[in-house]
């Protein structure tokens, strides 16, 4: 389906690009937030990434899928922005633990609240770890694909994922026990 719309856009149909915006904006936003931890900056990054994708669509040679190519743009943009901002990412720990002090409170939470809590936990993880988790579990990419998307070596991806799982569980262990 993507190929059809790529041909349309390359043929001069600008409005056909809306298909990609609608389809990929949420995942792109999730990826950007994983890195920069700020919704407004993430929006800016995703917008810039779409513009870059539009400009570069003619040079997209279909060696990989459009999603892989586009998410790579998003990841590069996000890390470039992060470098510019030099934001201090609050390390996970104290703040996250404070959220799950009361197990009973978590189990009685609604799904939206649980989603909020999980995203808060991801926000407190270092950018590479939350990005690796989202790509691996949410986008259901394998180690090789995560490596292609991020430019990290496969062994590096494995190490980051291992750390990310460990950190995530340190914060969520009680939540998991309460839920399952």
């Amino acid at each position, binding site marked *: 389906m993507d190929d059809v719309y790529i041909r349309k856009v390359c043929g001069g149909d*600008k409005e056909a690009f809306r298909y990609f915006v609608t389809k990929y904006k949420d995942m792109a*936003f999730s990826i950007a937030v994983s890195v920069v931890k700020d919704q407004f900056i993430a929006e800016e990054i995703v917008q810039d990434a779409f*513009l870059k994708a539009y400009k570069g669509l003619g040079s997209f040679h279909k060696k990989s899928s459009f999603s892989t190519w586009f998410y790579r743009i998003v990841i590069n943009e996000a890390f470039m922005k992060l470098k510019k901002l030099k934001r201090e990412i609050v390390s996970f720990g104290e703040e996250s633990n404070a959220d799950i002090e009361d197990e009973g409170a978590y189990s009685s939470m609604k799904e939206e609240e649980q989603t909020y809590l999980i995203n808060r936990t991801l926000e407190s993880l270092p950018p590479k770890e939350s990005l690796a*988790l989202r790509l691996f579990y949410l986008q259901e990419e394998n180690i090789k694909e995560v490596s292609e998307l991020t430019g990290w070596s496969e062994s590096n991806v494995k190490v980051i994922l291992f750390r990310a799982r460990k950190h995530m569980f340190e914060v969520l262990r009680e939540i998991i026990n309460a839920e399952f």
Partner: protein
Amino acid sequence: MLNEESDDKRLSEIMKKSMLRMPFSDFEEKVMFAINKQARYKQIVLKDTKLSCFFFLLGTGFGVGVNYYLSHANQNLMGLSSAQILLFYQVSFVLFFLMQLDKIFKLIHNLKS
């Protein structure tokens, strides 16, 4: 203690809840507006580049014509001989031609990139 496999399964289920939705309802419109603006800008630049090339060629033709005229005219002007006028004109013409050629190349290069 949770074993690694069940940890992974549980984390996978938990992570399914981590999908974020774009919270800005006007995001699509903003992107499409930026794309349309960029496309319009590119069209304008393309049109201007074509126009620049046209006037560059026109100016070059005119310059060559003036050069031809001066080389055949035997008139003195303000105490300068026709040979001196021709030399002054030719040096100015070549300098101006090279400067404009450089600008045209840069314009075309920018358009391509």
